[in-house]
């Protein structure tokens, strides 16, 4: 008879908890008993080689795929994310690699696409422009010349910034970014990494999928590695070095000891 089992304080409860998640496509087991925690105010990097299941896991969280088994907990409550609308209702926004921006529309129009504000049956452009400007300013996206310029005229980093701003505009709590720095130059990459840090400083949970270890070590608070559909390790970033992450990605294990580490599989 002891009081050792104290209830976990609400603050330490991760925003999103994935437990024993399975997903297969025909005979291919894409995800196998995956456990993952995404806490608020932290950047979690999800690494893995091609075909490790990073995109499938992302799409299960974003509501594009339905997991076969397992449970997802949102703020401690079990949830079923059936489609993209369910995900955005919870506060999950995904920025895909192709960004899904319409080149011919301007920044404001892209940020409000599908959720336009309407007054008397007509688009309320003034109020949308004001809100978009506020969001961009709060993320300190200041390099765009005008928020009324078409997205076609933006650089790669600016496009990424617009896609992120579009995602955080809707009071989202979790932003998932798929390869945000792929195809970007040095300066552009720095812009995007700074933006990711700013999202964390706002208290959002961020999950970044990336191959680029340099970028990962710059922004990640914790690192999770998928290997052939299994989540082989999740720990704080200081528990890894580049070589150990590469070991996990390519072999599913590592003999290197960098810091205190708990292997999950």
């Amino acid at each position, binding site marked *: 008879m002891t009081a050792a089992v104290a209830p976990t304080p609400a603050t330490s409860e991760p925003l999103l908890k994935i437990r024993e998640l399975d997903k297969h496509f025909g005979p291919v087991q894409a995800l196998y008993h995956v456990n993952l925690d995404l806490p608020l105010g932290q950047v979690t990097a999800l690494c893995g080689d091609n075909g490790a299941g990073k995109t499938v896991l992302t799409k299960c969280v974003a509501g594009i795929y339905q997991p076969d088994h397992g449970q997802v907990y949102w703020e401690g409550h079990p949830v079923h994310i059936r489609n993209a609308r369910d995900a955005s209702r919870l506060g999950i926004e995904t920025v895909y690699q192709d960004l899904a921006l319409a*080149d011919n529309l301007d920044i404001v129009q892209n940020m409000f696409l599908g959720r336009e504000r309407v007054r008397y049956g007509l*688009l309320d452009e*003034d109020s949308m422009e004001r809100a978009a400007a506020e969001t961009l300013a709060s993320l300190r996206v200041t390099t765009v010349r*005008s928020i009324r310029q078409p997205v076609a005229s933006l650089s790669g980093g600016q496009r990424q910034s617009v896609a992120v701003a579009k995602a955080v505009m809707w009071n989202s709590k979790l932003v998932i970014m798929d390869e945000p720095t792929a195809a970007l130059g040095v300066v552009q990459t720095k812009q995007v990494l700074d933006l990711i840090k700013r999202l964390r400083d706002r208290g959002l949970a961020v999950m970044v999928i990336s191959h680029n270890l340099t970028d990962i070590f710059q922004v990640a608070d914790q690192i999770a590695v998928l290997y052939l559909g299994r989540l082989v390790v999740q720990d704080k970033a200081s528990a890894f070095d580049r070589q150990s992450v590469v070991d996990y990605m390519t072999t599913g294990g590592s003999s290197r000891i960098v810091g205190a580490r708990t292997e999950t599989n």
Partner: protein
Amino acid sequence: MARAQKPTDVSGVPPEEAPDLTAAPQAAQAEVPPELVAQSLGQYARAWVSRIRAGESGVLPVIVAMAVIMLVFTAKSPVFLSPVNLVNLFQQSAVFMVLAMAEGFALVLGEIDLSVGFVGACGAAITVQLVQPLTTNWPWWAAIAAGLLFCAVFGAIQGTLITRLRLPSFIVTLAGYLIANGLFLYILLLGPFSGYPNLAGFSNNLHVIYFLMWGSIDPNLSWVLAAIAVLLLGGWMWISDHRRRTSGLVAPPASLTLIKVGLIAVVAIVVVAICNTNRASLGTLEGVPWVIPIVLGVLVVWTILLQRTKYGRYVYAIGGNPEAARRAGINLPLIRTVAFALCSFTAGIGILLYASLLGGMSNNLQGGQYVLYAVAAAVIGGTSLFGGRGKPLHGVLGGLVIGGIYNGMFLLGLTVEWEYIVTGLVLLGAVTIDSLSRRGAASGSVTRV
């Protein structure tokens, strides 16, 4: 007036101080619409010139084309600029304008509708048949509604096949072209008119359809209506720009708004003055033809729909990036099907005007040629064949160019083969400009990634 304006940069930092981290700021600058970054008229003009150099020419080619047409035909034929002929030109162009606005719905989606000519012809033939006093004798409004309803349903069926069965719009509307052609001939042969139901005769309903093209508004009333239209449009432009300027949103300089309103007023005055000249050789024939307010009405309604409503925004989004639209939760099949229905509906209005111009309907109508004119007019006006870009106004400007060529070549006594060849060359030129400016934009983006 421009001195108190706030910078448009979202950070509140003047654009010169904010570092532009793009690798090719020159190229980026070229693609920004000048009204977005210019604070004064001079800056606006400079930005405009740099955009034209970069291949983003906007409506400039169409203005140049109009000037060339006017100069060439005026030099060759003194009649070209006479009020009689100019009003005639407006009337002929009206058909091209409305058909081009119809085709615009398909083009902005990145699709094409080859059936506009004959689907519109079916609608017009239905209307002309229904108002005949000898047979059905429907009231004019019911007959017009029935004709346009037929067009909308035909378009909706084509749209459904294209979106639900994922058939290519090119093939579906090519089939629709043939089917509508057959239906058109069938409808013409109904009743005791030997295939030529016409609008001559003593019936109020016939007169209304005939007057769509040939009726004129009283000259004094024309001035009053034109003044009201300019005041409403100009006032609305000024108020909305002014409100955006005072609340620090992106807005053109006040002088530019005034110039735009002034230009509209000048165009209105010139048009009304031309139309109010007596253009009959015997008796009086003066006043603005009804067709001008009809075309303007179509222009205003479709512009509001495409530029100011959610529906229009989604049409552009689908034309620009269908995948982005789908992820934004937009119902793609519905939006596209409605666009095809609106395309055919507008085509119905266009060919109804043609029927009125002709004073009846006959199997002489070149439905296939009208499709090409419609596409040509839209593209010449600045609508992109590749989707995502284009406005109803482009159809009106392009229609005026096609109408000018059509009219001028007729005046010169050139035969129809030359008309085909010149129109074909103009279409080629317009598509080349469209394609080049698109390639310029694309290569610009690549250098800046």
